């Protein structure tokens, strides 16, 4: 299997605030891993650093043996790290199919789509995420749950090895959450390494076999969910803000 992502001493400062502080971890190929922490712990910053949307002040990121620290986002995507955003983003005047086609037209997506055709490849992704019957409508009319699915579809279009999901469940009803859970499990079974965040733990803890917990930019625990949930600092970090584990 081997290590797919290796992060060493990652640090990011915004003015006087240290959002990510000396953060190190490794992800094995094919792993399914969660990142938890209270609001403002720095989870999204970690994702932004991993995908090149922010440049770190110190530390290094190696993906698949390549040093990707400070690379531009599109280069990182084409190496095989795709991400979704906490707030849904879509190309609002393009159809759902074209939204996914854009990813399929990226250099990495093209490697897959050139044999079967862009449209067919995009349709197959829409079938997988369950939006194929809405292929010809623009995303502005979609409900929130479908937009989350579209997010994942857009990321999958670039044929990623490692998929970063930023709060994939936020703002969803229970049924919608189950749908996304199935989708993520299916992707993991297809061999995609998955790294996801969440600040409400209920869904995450039942889904992933390994969890990283962070608080104020620091890694405070790393292990199976049950162990991490019982960790003293984790409890303090959460209980201090009046939030508990369900």
């Amino acid at each position, binding site marked *: 299997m081997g290590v797919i992502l290796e992060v060493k001493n990652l640090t990011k400062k915004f003015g006087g605030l240290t959002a990510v502080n000396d953060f190190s971890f490794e992800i094995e190929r094919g792993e399914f891993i969660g990142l938890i922490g209270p609001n403002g712990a720095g989870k999204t910053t970690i994702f932004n650093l991993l*995908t090149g*949307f922010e440049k770190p002040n110190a530390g290094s990121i190696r993906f698949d043996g390549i040093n990707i620290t400070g690379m*531009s*986002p*599109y280069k990182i*995507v*084409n190496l095989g790290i*795709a*991400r979704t*955003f906490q707030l849904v*983003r*879509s*190309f*609002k*005047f*393009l159809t759902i199919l*074209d*939204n996914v*086609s*854009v*990813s399929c*037209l*990226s*250099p*990495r*997506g093209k490697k897959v789509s*050139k044999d079967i055709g*862009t449209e067919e490849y995009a349709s197959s992704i829409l079938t997988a995420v369950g939006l194929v019957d809405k292929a010809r409508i623009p995303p502005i009319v979609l409900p929130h749950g479908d937009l989350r699915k579209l997010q994942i579809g*857009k*990321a999958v*279009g*670039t044929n990623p090895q490692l998929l970063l999901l930023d709060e994939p469940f936020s703002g969803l009803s229970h049924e919608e959450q189950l749908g996304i859970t199935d989708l993520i499990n299916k992707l993991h079974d297809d061999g995609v390494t998955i790294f996801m965040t969440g600040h409400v733990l209920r869904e995450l803890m039942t889904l992933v076999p390994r969890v990283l917990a962070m608080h104020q930019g620091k890694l405070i625990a790393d292990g199976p969910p049950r162990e991490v949930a019982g960790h003293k600092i984790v409890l303090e970090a959460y209980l201090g803000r009046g939030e508990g584990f369900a």
Partner: protein
Amino acid sequence: MQIRFLNRIKENSLFVICVSVFYLVELTYILTLLYYFGYTSLILSTILYFTLFYFGFLYLAFNFTILWAAIKRNFKLIPSAIRRLMAWLGTFKGGLTLFCMLIIAIIPLLTQNAYYLGSMFIVAMIYTIYAASWDFLAGYTGQVSFGQAAFFGFAGYVTADRILIQNWPWLPSLFFGALIAVLISLIIGIPTLRLKGPYLALGTLSFASILYLLFAMPTILYGSTGLFGVPRLSENVIIEYYIVFIFVIISLTIMKAIGNSKLGTVFKSIRDDETGAEASGIHTTRYKILAFVISAFFAGIAGGFFTMRNTAVSAQIFGTTYSFYPLVMVAIGGIATISGAGVGAFFFIFLIEILRGVADFQWLPAGAADFLDDALIFSVLLILVIRFAGAGVLKSAIERLKNLWDILLGR
């Protein structure tokens, strides 16, 4: 390696268009050389052409191989393309487009008045290409340029220079001007396209202003008087009309086709959400520069025609007026439609003409009248359009027409 390269290139149907345009330019180049050396020196010009510029026949043969492979690959697409075209012409929009094209095509049969044909219809058609080029950049890629006059004007100057000073025929001059506009767009685009929103608009505007100052200087380049005495396309205004008409059709079709292609999808994704496009693995800067270059090419074509129509060109062509003309026209016609640029251009030119007849600015001091009637029409029109037809008049007009049509047919 060569085979892989070939395969990769063959897949791109856009490539066929590019190579075809390239051949057109090469052909015009050979013709120009012939023009210089005369037909007696055919061999000399051929030798010069192949040795100096393209390292011999091998290069050309290689090009032919690629082109032929690309055509063969795309050949089977032609029947389905024709079928789709016919189906489209059967729809309301397609029929309307065909109808409008026919109307414009038969105008010279209805009036031979040189003023109407020349100063209104031909100018409006030239502005159509110009405004469409701006719409391509702003409507499809979301990059708002306030310096489109830089390409328009530069190509105008270069075309005039080639025709007047180098004695080139008009067609190679026109393409040469457009190619230089492409070069200028690279020089302007590579630094400015890193800017976003209003900063990009100001950045492009400042480049156009620099060019204005440069060309307005009395001693360098062509001096403050500019170039004049450029011959028209033809002595006969009707021939001129049809040449420009053909160029309008070709230019708009190419821009529309690119907009509807996969490349267009990528352009539109950058317009809708640049960060999202980057997260989808798109090299946004590269695509923005590509859109800029395509836009500059067509603005350059328009600039060349404009110079030939006016028989003169001066630094005024880099003025903000010419940068804002396409903006107003596209706002009238509707953004991201391409054909809306045509509606806007005709509407604009004819409105100015009508208002010139009606409005009487005699009571103003001399000189102020000219400024006022253009500026007034500009601002009033823009305010009215933004207030009452935010998406441009074309879309709502087509909808109303379609409703009327349905009622007439009893649907």
